[in-house]
């Protein structure tokens, strides 16, 4: 084991996430950290709690035509369209790089049919070096006419069951915020065997170029992420924490240690950093340091004493 910064106070930042012991609760969010290698020049990957890789499908996907991204006030829209190398190329070409580091690797997966989710899970389970599966259920369910699996409790539960049946790895289900009642979906996937839930994925948004009178994105709509969405994400995390027993991973607009602490104090067991990596490539490093500084300043000896320590009246 390397004598890295985290081991100065051994385990102060350590968290146990459904059996997966992480050095600290700070992970990278899927789609915002590539396959790790892109950020290796700027971050010490060994210091991360976990790396969640870009969403993987059974076959490689080309994704949407450009323009794919647009900045909005304190946020960004993306319509990458789940471009990825496919699960087999990931295992052959990307995983060996990640295995060099002492960091948990979480494979984010998606499919257009339940069977696709099942097969991607099967392949990943047999590949050494994947520590958990994160199931993205925000993508269109082709059978249900393109509505996201994550928008309906039954569909979300079916995907979860299928993945659960295929692997012994921890299964994290990633929820979409574009729903009336996220607790309903969280409870459905908990019952279906999810070990944890992570939220939020992006909020659907849109932006128009008034000079050309066209949408900024070729896809018209895209997913909103970044600091703008943090209040919505935190509210949903708070709601879900109070409605399920499995751990909740907080995602959405986290760009500073203070942001991460809001989620942890609210009761998230870990956090994922997404758009902030683009804004500042060493964001994760500063967030890890900042959480530790806060705990020292507030004399909090371990994560258990921090997590969920929010006080509300009544």
């Amino acid at each position, binding site marked *: 084991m390397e004598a890295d910064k985290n081991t100065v106070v051994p385990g102060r930042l350590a968290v146990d996430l459904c059996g997966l012991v992480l050095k600290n609760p700070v992970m990278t969010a899927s789609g915002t950290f590539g396959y790790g290698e892109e950020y290796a*020049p700027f971050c010490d990957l060994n210091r991360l709690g976990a790396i969640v890789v870009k969403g993987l499908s059974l076959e490689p996907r080309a994704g949407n035509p450009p323009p794919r991204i647009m900045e909005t006030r304190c946020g960004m829209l993306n319509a990458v369209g789940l471009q990825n190398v496919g699960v087999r190329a990931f295992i052959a070409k990307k995983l060996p790089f990640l295995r060099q580091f002492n960091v948990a690797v979480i494979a984010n997966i998606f499919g257009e049919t339940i069977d696709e989710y099942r097969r991607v899970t099967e392949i990943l389970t047999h590949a050494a070096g994947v520590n958990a599966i994160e199931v993205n259920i925000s993508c269109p369910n082709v059978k249900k006419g393109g509505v996201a699996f994550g928008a309906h409790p039954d569909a979300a539960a079916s995907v979860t069951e299928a993945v659960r049946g295929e692997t012994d790895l921890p299964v994290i289900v990633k929820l979409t915020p574009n729903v009336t009642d996220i607790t309903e979906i969280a409870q459905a996937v908990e019952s279906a065997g999810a070990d944890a839930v992570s939220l939020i994925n992006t909020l659907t948004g849109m932006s128009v170029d008034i000079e050309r009178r066209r949408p900024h994105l070729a896809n018209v709509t895209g997913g909103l992420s970044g600091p703008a969405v943090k209040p919505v994400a935190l509210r949903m995390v708070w709601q879900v924490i109070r409605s399920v027993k499995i751990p909740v991973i907080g995602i959405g607009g986290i760009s500073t240690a203070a942001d991460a602490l809001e989620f942890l104090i609210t009761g998230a067991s870990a956090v994922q950093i997404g758009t902030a990596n683009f804004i500042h*490539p*060493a964001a994760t490093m500063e967030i890890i340091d900042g959480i530790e500084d806060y705990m020292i300043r507030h004399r909090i000896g371990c994560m258990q004493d921090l997590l969920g320590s929010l006080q509300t009246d009544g």
Partner: protein
Amino acid sequence: MAEKPSIAIGQVMENRSVAPGHFLLTIRLPLSFATPIPGQFVMIRDPDRDEPLLPRPISVYGFQREDGHAILNLLCRVAGRGTSLFSRLNSGSTLTVLGPLGRGFTIDPDVRQILLVAGGVGAAPLAFLLQECVFSKPHSAKRQVTAYLGAGTAELLTGLNRFEGFCNLRTATDDGSCGYHGNVTEMLALDLGEYDAKSTLILACGPMAMIRSLDLLLRDTRIRCQVSLEERMACGVGACLGCVVAIKEGEGRNGYRRVCHDGPVFDIGEIHWNPPVEG
């Protein structure tokens, strides 16, 4: 080989308006900042502001090491809100500079004649290339360099001083206020027959319409041509897949490649124009 990029805290030494809507930033960086290859770019951001939230890609226009610092020059055009805010940065203010990034221009050993073709602020990476050719690499003196620079008006022919005296120079303006009256590709077309296809290399940077007409012009020739492309970026390092262009992958297959990581410099023949990349 490209050196390893880093995130550096830069200090604005000078921010000078060079033409209406165009400014030249001179940024002091730590000496450890890697030496950029012409065609590479940096991502810059004001760390004290939420706007622009994402860093913006700007090509390296000049780079030197001086008095224990690295000095970076960027030539910028005000295109929107982000560049407008940058244009108002005072000297002394802080910028984060991520880079150098991307794949720059590559000049094969058999190249004898280099043609630089720029539209507007696209002159920036080519000026840096010329600087490197002229000052850093004595051998390359054997190569002829001719620059074709185009802009809307004489005033907007920014960076001209970095070309004058260092290479053959042809200018074109849309309004005819300086040099050829018309666009830069038309002007190049008139000269093209004079160059030996086998030993000539065109390096181009400019608006998509210029690149497109250059592609049409060169289609029937065998002249090699590398172009620097632009696309909206978020990460600049290949992670977000936001900045793609459609590229012919051979055997009739096409795919998206990242401008920030696989480019910004591509062979012009690789670009898949149909469906058009933008608009």
